[in-house]
């Protein structure tokens, strides 16, 4: 019996005639928190969209909990327990905070229990804003909402695209702590993409580095402790 939650095997993705990702192999075990790091424009977001199924690879397979999901559309994958938090949050601006949270429940179709109420325990600030239009809350709150929305469906795998992007450092810290706590308490497996050094070091148990559409290297826990080395993969 294997505990591999997600495996990518020889994935190539292109936009039109432009190759974005080339021959990506990675795998994530149940309960792990794995980071993918790299600078702007190296294909991190493309990778996330390929995992959730918003983009189709030209080559390779995506395996989720032992099942080949390469040909499943995003909505089917989501219902198998993938929670996706996109870059830039993408909350539904004209829906209320609570409606946004409830939108995430479909993820839990395969389970008896959803976690709508737990979301408000993790993010009391969302509780205060339940009835407010999501487009009118602050950037940090939108980020909490995007996390809460994915969490509401009690996902097995959380896909997180740049949690820190465009958010004040103090809130980044808080959100980082929240993610850590959630993965621990709920046993959810986390795959996240990031270029913020501190977030990577705090969250990731191990990390893939991508550049130019390829996986350049993999960093284990000890490698991640060497701040300078990690920074060199990211900085200007």
């Amino acid at each position, binding site marked *: 019996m294997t505990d591999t939650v997600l495996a990518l095997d020889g994935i190539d993705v292109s936009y039109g005639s*432009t190759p974005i990702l080339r021959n990506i192999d990675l795998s994530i075990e149940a309960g792990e928190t794995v980071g993918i790091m790299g600078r702007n424009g190296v294909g991190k977001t493309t990778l996330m969209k390929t995992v959730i199924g918003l983009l189709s690879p030209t080559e390779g397979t995506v395996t989720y909990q032992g099942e080949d999901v390469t040909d499943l559309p995003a909505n089917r994958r989501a219902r198998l327990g993938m929670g996706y938090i996109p870059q830039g949050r993408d909350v539904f601006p004209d829906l209320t905070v609570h409606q946004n949270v409830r939108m995430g429940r479909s993820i839990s179709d395969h389970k008896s229990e959803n976690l709508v109420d737990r979301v408000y325990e993790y993010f009391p600030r969302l509780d205060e804003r339940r009835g407010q239009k999501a487009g009118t809350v602050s950037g940090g709150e939108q980020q909490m909402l995007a996390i809460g929305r994915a969490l509401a469906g009690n996902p097995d795998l959380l896909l997180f695209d740049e949690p820190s992007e465009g958010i004040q*450092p103090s809130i980044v810290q808080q959100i980082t702590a929240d993610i850590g706590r959630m993965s621990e308490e709920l046993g959810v497996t986390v795959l996240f993409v990031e270029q*913020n050094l501190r977030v990577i070091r705090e969250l990731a148990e191990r990390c893939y580095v991508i550049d130019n559409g390829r996986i350049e290297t993999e960093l284990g826990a000890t490698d991640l402790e060497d701040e300078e080395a990690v920074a060199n993969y990211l900085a200007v």
Partner: protein
Amino acid sequence: MTASETTTDVAGAALLRTEGLTKQFGGLMAVDDVDLRIESGDIRCLIGPNGAGKSTLLKLIVGQLEPSAGQVFYRGEDITDLSQHDRAREGLSMKFQVPAVYGDLSVRQNVHIPLQREVSRRDIDAEIDETLESFDLLDEAGTRADDLAHGQQQWLEIAMAAALDPDLLLLDEPAAGMSVQETERTAEYVHRLNDRGVTLLVIEHDIDFVRSIAQSVTVLHQGEVFAEGTIDEIEDDPEVRRIYLGEGH
């Protein structure tokens, strides 16, 4: 800068100057009080983390977006209220981040449309050939623009923007999605344009590319000018390093 200085601008000063340029989207300050100054003949690179407001700034300069506040001066003249096409006629040209070529038309037709502004009917075929030649696209003259490889589409768009014979050319990520060789070639085109007297303002992420073209660099962060200087100064600046690593200020 005092109020009196905003209205008078010395002749022969900066080719492009923005003053207090601001763009607000809802509650978000995409560009926040930016004063930018670009001298004639410069190659300036604009860098900064995602969401820093770089593309928005370019769109404000070229007139695609209206600023919430502030002004744009071009050759000392206030062009803030000028339409996009009037700015283009004044010698401002732009290449978009996502290639905005005429996908259904041939490469030749693509270049024809801007070039006919500058060249008479009689000479246009020769001029198109020359333009395509200088961007190594002559062999593709008959290809539909949508059928070009990504790199070639980027070059075609630069060729189109350059066909207007601009004084100031704005390039939004000209090397995005390119291989190392393609990026090098793009840098070569940029230099060639600059040698012809074109001033360039370039948004770019690839720091090697920036190093290969830029004379000076402006760092934008959260809509504001964060730092300015030569590429070496910027690279050694610990503050810049920190915003790139996401540790704020």
